[in-house]
């Protein structure tokens, strides 16, 4: 049954909105990610600013209708400075009862629910935990409900294409996409072209899906909708002119690593072992063989990091990537790279932990591990990515530091950034300044212990170079000859030298800037990593309320910018939101002896703007 027919008054008048959050939710097999991605593309083409957040379960194909199998894709799009995927949902598309029950709590009062009424069978409702049919028992009265017999309509639509019942039903997501496109006045062209390309070998399937999109759209256009349901208009955003594309953090990071390799004029060996949510880097780079990159799926994370170190020894740039548990396995080898002073880039796409934890969810709890998590005194640079497009620049910077200082560098990204997407104003790669690596070739007076007097970087002589045959290894090396040495004073000297080299990087990185607000004042909200977008919005709102708040976002986690301590001391209070139980706060306290207040969230979900806004307000009130 559909409520649509029951309502007579149509008010298909466009409603102007500044921004809207839409969430598509369904079974993991319902194709919600594909739906979301298509809608995102149409939205980007329309000219809105946007941010997306896919949220999928750990189970690949959970039993149909199970609450733990619900896969969701959220997009926030608007006409002004969008930096998060949004706090509360305005429009919830729920393909079954499980999707409705698990997502309803995020819907705003008066929000719009679109459901497939056909999926609300007794069995599905029972499985989701509904005692009575929520579409009929009044429990959704606080919202606007658009209950449509989508399954039936889809099957009717695709009948001419001769699809089986099972394959026919798979077009449900495209029907829903078509309806949502109508709701927000988006063009279907790109999605339709995409389907025809994707199913080029199966034209029946392609055309069935296209018909489903068109049918969903036509449904919106021709059916008399319930009162209050109308086309939304979200005006185009005022974004700087230029060429744009939509990019996920993971893609940007992969491209950034390739770009870094080009700027360093070094081929890359990328060695990794699959782990969620880090695998997409391996996937992306494996498809770029026309670039100077060789990818290697190793037998485990230890082999991966070791192969990367071997590649660096041979004169290429070794890169490895994983998530927390895999980074733990790499720890011993990273210390070897610190000892022998070879370049290496390690990407940690953090996830909820410990152990398997929440593999598909996000967290920032590997900061301690990155900075401190190795045996012995093995400092190394750690830099964090803050937005999807920032991943590109951070990756380049990691390559620059690794090759210039002959050191492992850890990039901290996270599951949110890896999967989320945002429009990216494309840079011209020709504007990037190169930092070509020069391998040693001069035989006269060569020692493998030679180092640059300014950077303290060790000489890099690659096998194959005549006359520079030498040995390196994990046993402590003599500071002058590079031969093995168990000498006490030499070890002291070498340990301090390795530390001084990393400390010195602080002189080679930009000073810490203030993202928003004054450089001194009442309150600084200090963040790092993927919390950038939410903190940015929360501080913006607080400042609109005339609060004296500033936003400082740290990229260089180790060594930290030289002015950071002084900068923080210029504020009465410091608030540090983190998706861990307070790691940056401990580091800042230890480094600068400052007092700070933490705001911790470890639910596997990113912060909401209002959570940070509330913490800012509480902090301001307690002091006024």
């Amino acid at each position: 049954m559909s409520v649509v027919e029951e309502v007579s008054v149509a008010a298909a008048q466009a409603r102007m909105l500044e921004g809207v959050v839409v969430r598509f939710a369904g079974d993991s097999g319902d194709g919600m990610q594909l739906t979301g991605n298509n809608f995102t593309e149409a939205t980007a083409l329309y000219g809105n600013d946007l941010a997306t957040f896919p949220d999928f379960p750990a189970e690949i194909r959970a039993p149909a209708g199970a609450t733990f199998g619900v896969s969701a894709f959220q997009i926030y799009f608007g006409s002004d400075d969008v930096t998060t995927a949004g706090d509360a949902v305005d429009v919830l598309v729920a393909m079954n009862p499980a999707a409705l029950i698990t997502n309803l709590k995020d819907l705003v009062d008066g929000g719009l629910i679109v459901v497939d009424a056909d999926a609300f069978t007794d069995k599905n409702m029972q499985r989701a935990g509904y005692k009575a049919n929520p579409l009929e028992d009044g429990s959704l009265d606080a919202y606007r409900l658009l209950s449509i017999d989508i399954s039936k309509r889809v099957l009717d639509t695709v009948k001419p294409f001769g699809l089986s019942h099972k394959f026919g039903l798979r077009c449900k997501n495209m029907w829903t996409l078509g309806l949502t496109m109508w709701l927000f006045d988006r063009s279907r062209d790109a999605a339709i072209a995409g389907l025809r390309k994707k199913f080029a070998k199966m034209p029946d399937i392609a055309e069935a899906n296209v018909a489903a999109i068109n049918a969903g759209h036509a449904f919106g256009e021709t059916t008399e909708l319930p009162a209050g349901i109308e086309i939304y208009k979200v005006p185009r955003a005022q974004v700087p002119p230029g060429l744009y594309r939509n990019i996920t953090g993971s893609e940007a990071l992969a491209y950034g690593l390739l770009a870094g390799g080009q700027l360093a004029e070094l081929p890359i060996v990328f060695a990794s072992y699959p782990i969620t949510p880090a695998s997409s880097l391996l996937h992306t780079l494996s498809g770029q063989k026309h670039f100077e990159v060789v990818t290697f799926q190793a037998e485990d994370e230890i082999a991966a990091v070791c192969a990367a170190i071997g590649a660096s020894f041979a004169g290429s740039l070794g890169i490895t990537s994983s998530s927390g548990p895999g980074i733990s396995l790499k720890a011993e080898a990273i210390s070897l790279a610190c000892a022998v002073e070879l370049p290496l880039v390690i990407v940690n796409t953090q996830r909820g932990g410990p152990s398997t934890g929440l593999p598909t969810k996000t967290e920032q709890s590997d900061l301690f591990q990155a900075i401190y998590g190795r045996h012995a005194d093995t400092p190394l640079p750690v830099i964090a990515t803050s937005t999807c497009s920032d991943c590109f620049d951070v990756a380049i910077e990691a390559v620059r530091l690794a090759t210039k200082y002959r050191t492992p560098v850890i990039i901290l990204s996270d599951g949110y950034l890896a999967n989320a997407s945002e429009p990216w104003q494309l840079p011209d790669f020709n504007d990037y300044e190169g930092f070509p690596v020069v391998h040693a070739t001069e035989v006269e007076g060569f020692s493998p212990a030679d180092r640059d007097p300014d950077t303290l970087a060790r000489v890099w002589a690659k096998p194959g170079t005549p006359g520079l045959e030498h040995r390196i290894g994990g046993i402590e090396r003599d500071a002058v000859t590079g031969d093995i040495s168990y000498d006490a004073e030499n070890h002291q000297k070498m340990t301090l030298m390795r530390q001084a080299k990393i400390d010195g990087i602080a002189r080679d990185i930009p000073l810490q800037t203030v993202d928003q607000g004054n450089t001194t004042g009442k309150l600084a909200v200090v963040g790092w990593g993927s919390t950038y977008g939410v903190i940015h919005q929360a501080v913006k709102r607080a400042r609109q309320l005339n609060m004296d708040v500033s936003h400082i976002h740290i990229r260089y986690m180790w060594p930290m910018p030289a002015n950071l301590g002084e900068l923080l001391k210029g504020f009465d209070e410091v608030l540090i939101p983190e998706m861990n139980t307070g790691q940056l706060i401990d580091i800042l306290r230890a480094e600068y002896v400052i007092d700070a207040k933490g705001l911790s969230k470890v639910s596997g979900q990113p912060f909401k703007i209002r959570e940070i806004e509330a913490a800012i307000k509480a902090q301001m009130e307690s002091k006024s």
Partner: protein
Amino acid sequence: MNAPLTMKDYETDQEVRWCPGCGDYAILKTLHKFMPTLGLPRENSVFISGIGCSSRFPYYMNTYGFHTIHGRAPSLATGVKLANPELDVWVVTGDGDGLSIGGNHMLHVLRRNVDLQILLFNNEIYGLTKGQYSPTSKVGTRSPSTPDGSVDRPLDPCSFALGAGAQFVARSIDTEMKHLTEMLGRSHSHKGASFLEILQNCPVYNDGIFEQVKNKKTAADSRVVLQNGEPMLFGKELDKGIRLNTSLLQLEVVTLGEEGVTLADILVHDESNKVLAQMLAGMHGPDFPEPVGVIFCADVSGYIEDVYAQRIKVREARPPADMNALLRSGHTWQVE
């Protein structure tokens, strides 16, 4: 033209720190003599090792060398080869390094057939950490960690290598310079991963375990030297041989002239026969002679070669790499 390299060119100025009488010295000396015979530029050779007495090896070879971490040499070597396929890469490892902590990497480097020469010094003990038993120690080995004798069964390195899919498996002895040299040559000329087990005496912690096979008096009866296409004969008088018992499907030792056995009954070695190789690898004393020589050798392409061949193919089918084009791939839109 440069003067041909000599043994001296491969020696380093480092003080060799093995115990007096260690089998590693003999192996080192053989390598020093062998390397110049390859006629390769010295700078193209790389020795990579893990941790253990045996793994100190690279410090004593005047080539490029990397003494890495325990068990991981195969992985580092894979990275070196992936980065520069032109290099001649050797892995030196021990029974603990290569088959205990690094067993997984050994398995995969052999399975993948990465173009390396892998020298496994098997002294059936952990030398460097002062004599604990190893995964190749015989049951009953007394060591600091097994004062009452070890109870777990050992693995056989060559059987392991064959099981992992190695395409070249051979065995030699530390002090047998001639045989070892020949095996090094065979390992080197094989493309893909070559696995060479070298029986190595540790006079300090496991002295004499290979005495039967090495001692001039007993050697002839305790080992069979495998030669491709030749019958597997052994003994001082070369009157003993290996026969396949077809009803039991196993090998047996027979004596020529006894019970009607003739030369025609003796198995002829065929390096390319994997089933035979597996039987030979599992053949051990005291009831059988220990096989030395090339147990298995198959001619298939190596991993690195395949990786680069695939890359060339992909490149032929795509426009040249262009960073700006990559960034602009997928849907883009212009904001005016």
